[in-house]
């Protein structure tokens, strides 16, 4: 390792834990950033159009979608059984299985495993699970440098930035910005960027290749996640585009995989569905360029054999069992992290991934994060409202997660409280703070709307005061009149017209 002699590129630590501003405030900043908006618009529109074409090629897409949903639902219903089967299969194949109830435990397990090897650096395959646990920061605190090898993750890490997309963590950056990051930062952590680096994608990719190759060839320990785990065989599966993952999964001596417990599928055959739906939904490819599967340590572990000589699987709960206990919200655990919902979401497109204050941004983040972390923090209480409920996310989801339904369900939890499961215990939570006035308004509206006489009187009052219609409203209405005119108030409501013109009949 070169550079500051410290412990890795020093990724930022604020991954949206409590204290992060609520969504509307964070989004306000993003909306005003013209470069960010242009970057996001270009990237999301390109990939959403490509995805639509790739999906349209399959005549049985709807059946595949239903099959994926069914496989996931079945597995979640019998998750205990399949996880135990998986543990047995991984162990039988020479791997070691560790169970982590939360992020801190997962990080402790991984840190201890790395320290036990005597190594002080690891290479990483892009993994949402280790982002969720903040593993890089935990390793850094233990004096271990973690190198991201996915191109976009590398850009984020070198740029001291935060990921803003599940699949394309650096989606918010354009080519020029990436060139600047490479030129300034690569030399501090390894092979510097070539002199006179341009912003051509091929040049940028080559610079990353040369920089990363040194890391692959030297690293003795790799950390990965997995897209799927097969219970019957103990097989781990990673889908990727660049081949860096395969380097990490085969070259180092020790491989540590940190995987959320919801990633298990019962049989090898079940992969058939997801091999079709995941690449098309995520990268708009018919098949992803690299599909790597590893099962424990394989049959022979002689000096000539390929692959790691030690394999550890860390199974991560971190709120998943609690999420599973909620009968509406549990469908979020079907998610295969394809990110199609992000790319199609008009709110994500304007607000950007950072506004979600979570490693899972976009529509799926808006339902997953407040379930995994609870709705106590301001950011988590604001996430279920970070959607217009337009339904585009549900339409593209390859495992048919009804995201709008879960959003409304979680809004109810925020606004009115209710029963939730926390650390395995059924508790009743109170409404989030700041909803008192809204609750009173909703109750008043209901009283008015449920009493036709009062409603009619209100409408007439409005009609009489129509000339007083202000250009700007006070209070919560200000949000409307800041950027829009109010609709003109008509001289009479419809029901009065009806009574006058057709009254004799109804």
């Amino acid at each position, binding site marked *: 390792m070169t550079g500051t002699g410290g412990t890795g590129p020093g990724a930022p630590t604020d991954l949206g834990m409590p204290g992060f501003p609520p969504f*509307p405030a964070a989004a306000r900043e993003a*909306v005003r950033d013209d470069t960010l908006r242009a970057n996001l618009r270009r990237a999301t529109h390109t990939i959403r159009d490509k995805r639509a074409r790739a999906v349209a090629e399959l005549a049985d897409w709807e059946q595949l979608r239903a099959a994926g949903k069914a496989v996931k639902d079945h597995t979640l219903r019998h998750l205990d059984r399949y996880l135990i089967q998986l543990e047995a299969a991984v162990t039988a194949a020479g791997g070691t299985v560790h169970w982590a109830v939360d992020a801190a435990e997962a990080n402790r397990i991984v840190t201890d495993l790395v320290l036990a090897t005597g190594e002080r650096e690891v290479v990483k395959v892009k993994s949402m699970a280790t982002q969720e646990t903040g593993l890089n920061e935990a390793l850094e605190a233990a004096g271990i440098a973690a190198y991201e090898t996915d191109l976009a993750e590398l850009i984020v890490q070198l740029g001291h930035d935060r990921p803003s997309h599940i699949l394309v963590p650096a989606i918010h950056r354009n080519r020029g910005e990436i060139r600047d990051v490479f030129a300034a930062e690569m030399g501090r952590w390894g092979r510097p960027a070539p002199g006179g680096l341009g912003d051509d994608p091929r040049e940028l990719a080559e610079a990353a290749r040369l920089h990363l190759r040194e890391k692959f060839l030297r690293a003795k320990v790799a950390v990965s996640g997995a897209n799927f785990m097969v219970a019957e065989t103990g097989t781990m599966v990673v889908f990727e585009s660049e081949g860096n993952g395969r380097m990490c999964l085969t070259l180092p001596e020790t491989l540590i995989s940190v995987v959320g417990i919801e990633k298990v599928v019962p049989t090898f055959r079940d992969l058939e569905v997801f091999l079709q739906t995941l690449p098309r939904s995520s990268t708009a490819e018919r098949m992803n360029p690299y599909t790597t599967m590893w099962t424990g340590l394989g049959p022979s572990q002689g000096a000539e054999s390929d692959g790691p000589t030690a394999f550890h699987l860390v199974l991560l709960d971190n709120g998943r069992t609690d999420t599973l206990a909620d009968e509406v919200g549990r469908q979020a655990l079907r998610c295969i992290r394809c990110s199609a919902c992000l790319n199609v979401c*008009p709110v994500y497109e304007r607000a950007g991934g950072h506004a979600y204050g979570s490693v899972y941004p976009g529509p799926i983040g808006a339902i997953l994060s407040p379930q995994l972390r609870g709705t106590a923090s301001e950011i988590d209480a604001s996430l279920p409202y970070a959607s217009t409920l337009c339904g*585009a996310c549900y339409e593209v989801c390859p495992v048919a997660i009804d995201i709008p339904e879960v959003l409304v369900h979680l809004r109810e939890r925020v606004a009115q409280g209710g029963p939730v499961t926390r650390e395995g215990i059924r508790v009743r939570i109170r409404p989030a703070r700041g909803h008192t006035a809204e609750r009173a308004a909703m109750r008043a509206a209901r009283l008015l709307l449920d009493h036709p006489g009062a409603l009619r009187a209100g409408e007439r009052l*409005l009609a009489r005061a129509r000339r007083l219609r202000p250009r700007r409203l006070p209070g919560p209405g200000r949000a409307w009149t800041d*950027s829009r*005119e109010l609709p003109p108030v008509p001289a009479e409501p419809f*029901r009065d017209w009806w009574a006058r013109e057709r009254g004799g009949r*109804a």
Partner: protein
Amino acid sequence: MRVALFVTCVNDALYPSTGIAVVRLLERLGVEVDFPAGQSCCGQPQYNTGYRRETEPLLRRTATAFAGYEHVVTPSGSCAAMLREHYPRIGRKAAGEGRGGELAELAADLAPRVYELTEFLVDVLGVTDVGAYFPYKVTYHPSCHGLRSLGLGERPRRLLAAVRGLELTELPGAEECCGFGGTFALKNPDVSAAMGADKIRAAAATGAEVLCGADNSCLAHLDGTLRRAGAPLRALHLAEILAATEEEPAR
């Protein structure tokens, strides 16, 4: 044929011209229209903001007001989706929470009788040419709930295309949300405004004179954005275009 008009609270209070247009249009097509006076708001703003319990009395009121009608017609895809998709859900949840099965039964009885206006015209009456005249260049924004929850598809465009004098222009990115989203416009005003601005920019670029939609709540947001921007384009509900004739032009 006799139908019940569910005018919706937004149309009742702010856009009576849309309700009047629906009445004139349906009567012109030989349909007898009733307006059950007991109707009110469907409760969608409350439900979508997280106040499900507050919607239960409104479900009861709506279902009771429209009991006995074979067809309940409404000029709002969003409110139609509330009655058809969410009422049964609210009813089942209420039953599950031990408040009796009455709401579930009311919802199950009402839901299949609810029609959004263009569905009713095309599917029930079987017409696409309603004999309208509207000599303007029009672009159509399909609101999300009509588009995705109800699956209105090409029905609104087919109806518009058959209007005499009307030139229909395709709206780029039509299927993208306009940014209204009920209380979203108040809770996330900056994102909502940015989405609205993009939508009216796309609409203006088509060269249209009228931005047509089938949900006055989305149109209130878009028309308000247009007027604040001083744009020459105006927003108008589809029903008012379909009701317009040479003798009785739209407002």
